[in-house]
């Protein structure tokens, strides 16, 4: 717990205030809209698109954007523990934002049932958040450059948004927005499972990469 506490204290401040600012922004926008369908669209946009993008880009900076990286590497703390302690706070903030937004949205009578039941609603934003987090982290570690990890996160996000039809027709298993945009798709569960497995594979890749510490100095 102390390690997590310090992992949090050693982050840049925007790791907290930026997701909070976006949360407040979307809460206000949703509150200003009176029509239920628009409120739903905003809620879906925040949970399904913005939350994962923010999480992915912050994850790209989580490990390597560390002023004491060389000191950290000289300790017995392994790569797995480093990844966990640096990523858990970020994903934790995203999760807290997602849950907080849903509480506000339900208070504004936003109906999430078009996305399915409770589990389906949570999976609709958790899966893309985990995927983009994995892309951001592994991209940054593979290229030893946080901004490239951020770019890869943004590129995947954009490609998935803009080429939705083609991706659904040709490799639907990798369509991370299926839960928000195609909640009734028959392959939804399979797709989400595939994406979680793919994210786990990227996590393993990240672990292997981070063990080669000198690449990052």
């Amino acid at each position, binding site marked *: 717990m102390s390690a997590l506490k310090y992992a949090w204290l050693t982050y*840049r*401040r*925007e790791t907290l205030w*930026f997701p909070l600012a976006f949360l407040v922004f979307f809460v206000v926008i949703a509150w200003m809209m009176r029509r239920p369908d628009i409120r739903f*669209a905003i809620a879906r946009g925040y949970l399904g698109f*913005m939350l994962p*993008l*923010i999480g992915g*880009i*912050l994850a*790209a*900076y989580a490990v390597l954007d560390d002023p004491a990286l060389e000191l950290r590497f000289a300790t017995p703390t392994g790569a797995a523990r480093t990844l966990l302690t640096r990523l858990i706070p970020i994903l934790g903030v995203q999760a807290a934002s997602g849950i907080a937004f849903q509480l506000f949205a339900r208070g504004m009578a936003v109906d999430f049932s078009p996305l399915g039941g409770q589990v389906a609603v949570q999976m609709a934003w958790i899966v893309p958040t985990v995927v983009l987090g994995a892309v951001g982290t592994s991209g940054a570690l593979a*290229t030893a*450059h*946080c*901004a*490239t990890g*951020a*770019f*890869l996160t*943004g*590129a995947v*996000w*954009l*490609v998935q*948004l*803009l080429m939705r*039809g*083609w991706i659904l027709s040709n490799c639907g298993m990798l369509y991370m927005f299926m839960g928000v945009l195609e909640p009734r798709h028959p392959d939804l569960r399979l797709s989400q499972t595939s994406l979680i497995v793919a994210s786990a594979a990227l996590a393993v890749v990240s672990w292997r990469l981070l063990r080669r510490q000198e690449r990052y100095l």
Partner: protein
Amino acid sequence: MSLRRRALWIAYGLLFGFHTLLLFSPPPLGEWIAGERIASHEIWPVAGRFLAAVNVFFPVVAGVLTADRVKRDLTLGMRELQESTPLDPASYVLAKYFGALAACLLPLLGWVMAIAAVMTAIGHAAPGFLLAVPVAFAAITVPALAFVVAFSIACPLAMPLAVYQVLFIGYWFWANFIPPGLFPTLNGTLLTPNGMFALQGFFGGPVSAAIAGPSRYDARDAVLNLAVLAACVIAVLVLLTGWLRRRARLA
């Protein structure tokens, strides 16, 4: 110096591969490479569509990777060294801007010309294509990247880098790809930098070969769009210069 950044070449390399795959894929994914020769009267619209497609993702690379160019000088203390030289803030800003812009444009120009050369060599396009592509590059891609790079070197000075990158990627989607009827957006206004105005106004091309019908924008709209984007670029660079001057005075 920016041209030597490994991150730039990695990102561009991935996009070059991605776009080349798209270009040589059959419809509906690929546009026009597979199959028929481009008719002579189609050369200019096709060149325009080619570069408009380039504008979907390449500005994202430019925006994300140039975001630290000026901020880095401030963070590393380089700015203090530069202020002790005869280099005035205006020259510094122009040098940073055009340097970053050139680093983003040159590899891209090389790639589009290579594609054009291949197209011509294999007989899919007449030699006139080799002229149409650089003209379309100048009219469609250069303004987009010029707009993006200006904001990207300036805005991160007011916010953390990762925050800017998230906002920029969100902006790029919101301001260029959300249909105006669906949601309030800058898409379709004179502030749109994605090249649609120039594509339709100068090159007579629709957004996609799959979309028939007359263009929404004419040449006058395209000129206005370019003028507005240029004015935005100048305004940002002037503001940035003023901010650096004030900062030096107060230091």
